[in-house]
């Protein structure tokens, strides 16, 4: 079926925000304790990541190795999702990768600087899941965490779980 490949980003951003606040709203009403909200967001991201990677890698050549995959995440994946590349990828070659995005899309609507730092986690959980899901579907088990020192810059740390 022919369908326009493009949607408007605003809608996604609003949806994402609403997902976050919606979940927390529900948690306050006792539906599911607060702590699990992050997990839920992460899980949603995970599932989306799985689906996206399946689509995005549909026509790419097979990956050579782990690093090859990480590069794909930083370039193609990130660009399709957040319309920019990861600004900096670092690794210790022992299965830890640090992806830095100096202007992370999901934080840009929040006022820059430090004042809203404590809210940051819930706006990053989904993306952590996104990365973890993508990697896991490419056969890489990992733990993905995020840290923000000053909005809207953001670091994602990927720890590969060797099996």
């Amino acid at each position, binding site marked *: 079926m022919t369908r326009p490949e493009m949607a408007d980003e605003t809608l996604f951003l609003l949806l994402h925000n609403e997902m976050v606040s919606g979940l927390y709203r529900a948690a306050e009403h006792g539906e599911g304790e607060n702590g699990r909200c992050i997990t839920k967001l992460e899980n949603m991201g995970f*599932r989306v990541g*799985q*689906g996206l*990677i*399946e*689509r995005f*890698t*549909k026509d*790419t*050549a*097979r*990956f*050579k*190795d782990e690093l090859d995959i990480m590069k794909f995440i930083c370039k193609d994946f990130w660009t399709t999702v957040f319309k920019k590349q990861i600004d900096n990828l670092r690794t210790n070659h022992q299965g830890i990768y640090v992806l830095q995005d100096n202007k992370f899309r999901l934080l840009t609507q929040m006022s820059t600087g430090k004042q809203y730092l404590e809210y940051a986690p819930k706006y990053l959980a989904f993306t952590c899941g996104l990365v973890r899901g993508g990697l896991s*579907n*490419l*056969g890489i088990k990992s733990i993905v965490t995020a840290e923000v020192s000053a909005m809207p810059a953001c670091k994602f740390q990927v720890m590969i779980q060797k099996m």
Partner: protein
Amino acid sequence: MAVCIAVIAKENYPLYIRSIPTENELKFHYTVHTSLDVVDEKISAMGKALVDQRELYLGLLYPTEDYKVYGYVTNSKVKFVMVVDSSNTALRDNEIRSMFRKLHNSYTDVMCNPFYNPGDCIHSRAFDNMVTSMMMQVC
């Protein structure tokens, strides 16, 4: 054209397998199962190969007396195996390749169905129809 089409999970268990005629389905189970040896071998070989050789289509896995077994591996390490009647000479490699592409697209949609849990058996009607179409059109 295809007599058996199977989707095999990362962990090498079948997510979907369909064959015609259905009565000796088990036979195809064995055919596909053993073909995984070749798939694994090809993938591991693939790793070393150059980028341009790293395509998802694995080509002919092995021929048996009456069948040809072809393979395809997605980047998510999900395998598609297609068994074709070797009498069917009409099938060119390119046609097989494009059939796999179709299969892959359809599978991708399955993966994107929010109600499908990755790793579960595939019950999608859409996918089923796609497979049927591939098995029906006789050359």
